[in-house]
């Protein structure tokens, strides 16, 4: 049995125009990229569009990936989180201008979408607590949001995130602590 190709091999192939190599990279990273985008943007459809845009950006900038500076996954998550933050900003602005829209309508639409894409977390016990986490994360400042998602869900080390964000380890630690602390408060509130 042949061992799966490494990220480096696939990138090399994609750079040489090998469609199959790029397709394998897509298969490998599609879900984590989508999950990162979803947790930042918090809209399934927008996160899906963002995923597509992230992969277009990815193959157009593959040349700039330096394996000595960061692993391919770190580089990809950086691209994904930055793009998702941009999309989240646009979405937030759009929502600010759509104040007239009925909140109930919005919730109904989200739930209708949930039917189409299955939403196990909504059905699970403690749904309110998970919703409290989502709402709290949506309100976090950009850096805190990014650090929170990359550390807890992509299991990146804080040192890697600091390097990726070009800031000190202390800043990243404080950001993660503040974000977690905010979530802790939100959970307490939700429980009470």
């Amino acid at each position, binding site marked *: 049995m042949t061992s799966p190709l490494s990220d480096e091999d696939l990138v090399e192939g994609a750079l040489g*125009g090998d*469609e199959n190599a*790029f*397709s394998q990279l*897509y*298969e490998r990273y*599609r*879900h984590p990229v*989508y*999950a990162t985008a*979803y*947790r930042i943007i918090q809209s*399934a459809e927008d996160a*899906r569009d963002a*995923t*597509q845009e992230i*992969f*277009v950006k990815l*193959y*157009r900038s593959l040349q700039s990936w330096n394996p000595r500076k960061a692993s391919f996954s770190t580089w990809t998550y950086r691209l994904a989180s930055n793009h998702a933050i941009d999309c989240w900003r646009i979405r937030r602005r759009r929502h600010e201008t759509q104040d007239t829209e009925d909140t109930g309508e919005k919730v109904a639409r989200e739930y209708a979408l*949930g039917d189409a*894409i*299955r*939403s*196990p*977390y909504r059905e*699970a016990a*403690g749904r309110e*607590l*998970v919703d409290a*986490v*989502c709402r709290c994360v949506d309100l976090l400042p950009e850096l805190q949001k990014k650090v929170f998602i990359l*550390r*807890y*869900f992509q299991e990146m*080390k*804080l040192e890697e995130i600091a390097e990726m964000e070009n800031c000190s380890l202390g800043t990243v*630690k*404080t950001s*993660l*602590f503040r974000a*977690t*602390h905010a*979530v*802790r408060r939100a*959970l307490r509130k939700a429980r009470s």
Partner: protein
Amino acid sequence: MPRSETRHYSEEELLMHLLQEETPEAGENIAGHVRECGECHAVLREYEIVVARILRWSVSDFPAEVWEADRLRLLELFRRDQAWLERRGLLRTLMHGFESAWDYALANPLPTLGYVVVALAFASERTITFLGLDRVVPATSEVIEIIRQFF
């Protein structure tokens, strides 16, 4: 007596300990302290619960066929971009040729001038008239004629 017993740790330090993001020596101190200190133990326990709650935030996925359609669209774009890059490659080859010629001209100005003169000499009378070289540099036609006869 271990240093860890001398002070309470901040919530940030306890969280970093929980996530194993501290230095190994700090980790040992905090672990020792937490074993003895009920207050810090309680904070650490609460963060454990918070982190467990956070990790329950799962993301539901679209059906496979939705992603398959997206993948095909993406590959189509990839193919188009590759074709464009190939065209750009051809242009780059032409540019490279021009740059090489320019470098040669700078390194060997006299032979280059000779080539240019010969090229001009063999240019037709009509081209000289068309470009209006006679008006720009007087007696161009005569000079060209002399060069032509010479070669």
